[in-house]
């Protein structure tokens, strides 16, 4: 079992509702392993895209 700290940048779809945001993020980052702890630590605008910056601790 190996624990890793990963940093993920997710481009946010334009028409996503805030109520669907958690599932959207988990759907993307859970591919990296078993999630121990995660959060969105920053949001930036790049061009016309909204980018979520995520830190997650995962186990493989």
């Amino acid at each position, binding site marked *: 079992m190996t624990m890793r700290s990963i940093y993920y940048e997710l481009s946010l779809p334009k028409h996503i509702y805030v109520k669907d945001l958690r599932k959207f993020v988990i759907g993307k980052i859970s591919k990296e392993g078993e999630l121990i702890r995660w959060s*969105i630590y920053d949001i930036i605008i790049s061009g016309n895209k909204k980018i979520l910056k995520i830190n997650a*601790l995962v186990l493989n």
Partner: protein
Amino acid sequence: MRTTPTILVIPTGIGCEIGGFAGDALPAAKLLASATGCLVTHPNVMNGGMLSEKDERIFYVEGYSLDRFARAEIGLKKVNQQKIGIIFDKKIENEILLRHLQVADACIATLGIDITSYVITDEPVGIVISDELSGLSSGYVRNPETLIKAGKSLINQGITAIAIVTRFPDEIDVENVNLYREGKGIDVIAGVEAVISHLISKYLKIPCAHAPALAPIDLKVNLDPRAAAEEIGYTFLPSVLIGLSTAPDLIDLKDYNDKVTISPHDIDSIVVPSGALGGEAVLACMERDLNIIAVKNEGVLNVSDKWFDYKKLFKVDNYIEAAGLLIAIKEGINYKSINRPLKSIQNCT
């Protein structure tokens, strides 16, 4: 008595002005518990090193389990007393271990807490403090399996809650530690502490909390009062044991036949620093259409309401104002009726 069960989150390791130090959000938690009659919160809010307090209205739930509660996966069941076991990291030196064992004995003798046994991990846990993200406290453990194995052996002996004590490296960034002690920086070890307790909660599904074992540090003259609770003893274990002693049982809602004291469906609101809206508990509460009370409590994050289009988000300037808002919610008073200017009703035909 009418209550409005509420979650209070102040994320660990993000340097909040209130709650970024040593249990310095505990007075705010007591205020909110008084306002709501029922507050669910986590060790970072309640643990003040040597100091903590029991409050019948406060439910002490570790962060990973708190996220599960916010996602409506578990309920909380009040208990009279938990039977606590302690996991000690194999890397802890004998003298420091003895200090911790004496703290456990003191909590039994003086506070009447039920602490029955301890185990030492087979291997060193291997704490790694990471500074990859400038300004945020983070890290990981090299040997998660040894912690899980130790926890399972305690559960096999009948314990119902786990305190974890791991040895943190002495080579912690001294400059940042000093800034923290002066009230100007973040708690550099807090992020890994949260990772450890999240790991145990995820795999063992019982109440748990973590205390770091550290070598004694020099006396500091210009110590910030918010960090002082960590300077008055040899260990940080007492607050963990006090919190766990009456922490609620975690009841899986998928297949439970047990009565819960608080169901996640009883929750109306979550109170959170206004720049920390990107945590899982908050997003889960938005998913469930609950009130988000965003308190001005500066930290290093800036994931604020400007990024979220969410109608039930209330911004307040401090925890006193949050308490007033929660009383209004509890008593069924429209908070807009108390604010000025007061708008007329709108024609929407």
